[in-house]
């Protein structure tokens, strides 16, 4: 066998190995999904979506859980969006290179990697105890906002960075101030990217159970929340709760709830992908 034959063989071998590696994750995920769907899909019906939780598995529904999740989504967006985008804009457009700003930047990058339960503990101390919000929706949303802020800041900065220098120059050259340039040119041009980042961050927040459990979100809430200060539950907590029950029927309920949760996250991701594609198509620098 010549040298080039050996090389070709190596090439081929890695090719096959690569395919194997790529598929391993997908296959596991597929098996998991298949298992869940088989178990839970039969349980999903109108009653399941519109019933309050119950001690009896066959009558229990996820109304409070998904309404809670929706509340959390909206509140978290309202809190994290302006904060994260403003911080991103500041760091990218206004901040001069100084030690403080360097320090801030490094820490924001680090924060994105902090385990979510730690955020939960932080939320418990600050929002639940110090601010006396209790285990309310607001406390939960604030905690999740903290969790996703670093992600939003980082993606906002990336999106802003992708706006070419020439657009800013064009705006400045016409006499625009920094704020006018950011507001009229940079943000609209990077909005698709920012939105994509926020949606991906939210889809992470939707799946979080740990920090909310820590701040005291309850699995059993017999009513749907009507104000941000009400107690609440969310889908992941409901699922967590059901899976820890001994009865077989609750496991089926959990599987059904997981399907709903997955649908919500897939939808969010889908919207993000759609927005990103549209942005790419619309603007060619």
């Amino acid at each position, binding site marked *: 066998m010549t040298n080039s034959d050996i090389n070709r063989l190596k090439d081929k071998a890695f090719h096959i190995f690569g395919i194997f590696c790529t598929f391993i994750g997908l296959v596991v995920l597929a098996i998991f999904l298949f298992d869940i769907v088989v178990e839970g899909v039969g349980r999903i019906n109108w009653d399941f979506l519109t019933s309050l939780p119950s001690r009896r598995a066959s009558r229990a529904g996820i109304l409070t859980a998904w309404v809670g999740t929706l509340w959390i989504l909206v509140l978290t967006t309202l809190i994290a969006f302006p904060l994260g985008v403003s911080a991103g804009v500041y760091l990218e457009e206004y901040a001069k290179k100084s030690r403080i700003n360097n320090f801030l930047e490094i820490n924001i990058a680090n924060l994105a990697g902090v385990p979510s339960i730690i955020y939960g503990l932080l939320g418990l101390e600050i929002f639940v105890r110090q601010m006396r919000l209790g285990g309310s929706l607001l406390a939960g949303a604030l905690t999740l906002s903290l969790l996703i802020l670093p992600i939003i800041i980082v993606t906002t900065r990336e999106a802003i960075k992708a706006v070419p220098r020439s657009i800013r120059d*064009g705006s400045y050259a016409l006499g625009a101030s920094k704020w006018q340039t950011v507001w009229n040119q940079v943000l*609209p041009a990077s909005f698709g990217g920012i939105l994509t980042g926020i949606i991906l961050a939210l889809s992470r927040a939707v799946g979080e159970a740990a920090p909310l459990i820590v701040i005291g979100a309850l699995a059993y809430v017999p009513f749907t929340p009507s104000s941000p200060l009400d107690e609440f539950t969310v889908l992941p907590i409901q699922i967590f709760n059901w899976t820890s029950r001994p009865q077989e029927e609750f496991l089926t309920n959990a599987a059904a709830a997981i399907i709903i949760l997955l649908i919500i996250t897939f939808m969010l991701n889908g919207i993000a992908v759609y927005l990103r594609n549209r942005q790419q198509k619309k603007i060619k620098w």
Partner: protein
Amino acid sequence: MGKKTKLEAIDLDAYYGDFHALKSINIAMEEKAVTAFIGPSGCGKSTFLRTFNRMNDYIEGFRTEGQILIDNKDIYQKDVRVDELRKNVGMVFQKPNPFPKSIYENVVYGLKIQGVKKKSVLEEAAETSLRRAALWDEVKDKLHKSALALSGGQQQRLCIARALAISPSVLLMDEPASALDPISTAKVEELIYELKNDYTIVIVTHNMQQAGRVSDYTAFFYMGELVEFNKTKTMFTSPKDERTQNYITGRFG
């Protein structure tokens, strides 16, 4: 010369941090004439161009010494407001950089940020500027379509229209045709020739023929120094400095 001096630099030095980018430049440019800046890359011609609308202010570590006068007023004085300055000194860039908005929005952007809201005023300004930039006939039916759908040459003329809309008296052009095909280049050059009746134009170019075709005066920069400044005719037929001669005949280095 006899005509009025519009733009002037007196003992101007410019630095990027430690780098001495412009070395005691002295020049006086005539009103309503086209002055071309030529010279090899990195010779400081773009830097110098950008001192006239203070676009260098955003670059960290950039500073100037000496004076830049527009209509005999030093624009680096503390009481000069940069946004006011840029209303008077328009700029067109190397690469066409229309905003990712409609053609109309692009043209009226300068007026809108000045706070002009009246639709009739904006629409009139848009039409006038587009006509001046010889673009009106090509775009009048699609004013509200995206500017990014225009061809490169049209985009550049749109950028010129955008600059004209805020009625400046000076137009700075940083290699305005270097990213365009020959036909579009010719159109932009024709436009410059037309516009010099009303505007004082300074154009940076790498294209020697372009400098010859469009400019009345030419300034040759080399290593941050103004080597020679003269009528373009004189510069292109009998330059005084040997470095100028070598550069314009393509025998550099």
